[in-house]
């Protein structure tokens, strides 16, 4: 559980929310399903996962699909994910020209957390304000 993460001394549990910042380099060597399971394993443990570089559209599509398969309404209380991304809007950079120029979707910062614990309070072009609930 995120609030009971063991401290560096291996003894006393820490009280807090664990945040996993995953670098571009860490994700680059992984296949699509490995990326998705890395994300969902963290989120199911109650952690907030931040990707330095987000997923591509096909990976996002599979993330939604796999997330749906993980929800067991009468099971462990996992109700899915909350996800926010920068840049948030879809612009023409994601089209052919953008892909040729290497702009757009490749650089987006992505925040993912358990849907029953994370809530976006505000989002605009410059700011994501999020509330993370403790259990």
């Amino acid at each position, binding site marked *: 559980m995120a609030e009971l993460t063991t401290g560096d001394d291996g003894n006393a549990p820490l009280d807090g929310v664990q945040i996993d910042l995953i670098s571009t380099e860490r994700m680059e060597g992984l296949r699509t399903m490995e990326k998705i399971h890395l994300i969902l394993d963290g989120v199911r443990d109650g952690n907030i996962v931040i990707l330095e570089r987000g997923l591509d559209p096909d990976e996002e599509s599979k993330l939604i699909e796999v997330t749906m398969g993980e929800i067991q309404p009468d099971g462990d209380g996992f109700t899915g994910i909350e*996800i926010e991304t920068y840049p948030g809007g879809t612009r023409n950079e994601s089209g052919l020209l953008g892909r040729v120029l290497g702009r757009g979707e490749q650089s987006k910062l992505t925040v993912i957390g358990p849907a029953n614990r994370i809530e976006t309070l505000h989002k605009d072009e410059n700011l994501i304000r999020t509330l993370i609930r403790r259990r």
Partner: protein
Amino acid sequence: MGLLTSIRSSISKLFAASEPRRIGIYGPPNAGKTTLANRIARDWTGDAVGPESHVPHETRRARRKENVEIKRNGSSVNIDIVDTPGVTTKVDYTEFLEHDMAEDDAIRRSREATEGVAEAMHWLREDVDGVIYVLDATTDPFTQVNTMLIGIIESQDLPVLIFANKIDLEDASVQRIRNAFPQHETVPLSALEGDNMDEVYDKIAEYFG
């Protein structure tokens, strides 16, 4: 190219051209996708596609209405309409309890809803030739699900039309949707009241014909 090959190619092209294109109706839950699918199907075939409801996730399986022939300006467009479950990243059965649903029913509906969303994503990657993306014009379109879905559709290079639904309601803002997705054409309509359906059919013929 030999005569036989040429004839075979022409026949093949003829059949390909006459095959209906599968147009997926996508969007978040409660945007009015089934109401729109029913409106189109009733206008051109006389039949409905599926039941409509104000309770989210009423559509939990993709439903297809085949061979919907839309006549515009002397020509006709033949499409299959695929009404898909509303796409979301979360499903919590307790939300259905607020709609006077028994717990067992709410759990079953949630399970079916998750399967439906997964199926909708699969259809989007594999089985549609174009997309109508339906948004409730009274709600904020700047959501992550909308942004992701539009991005996924664009990455598939599928033709897409955005429909700003529920313009009969006082709080509707078509401009807010246009601002959110300026790279795509937005068509205002009320699927429930049948408002602006002439333009809807003109655009369907233009984009998917």
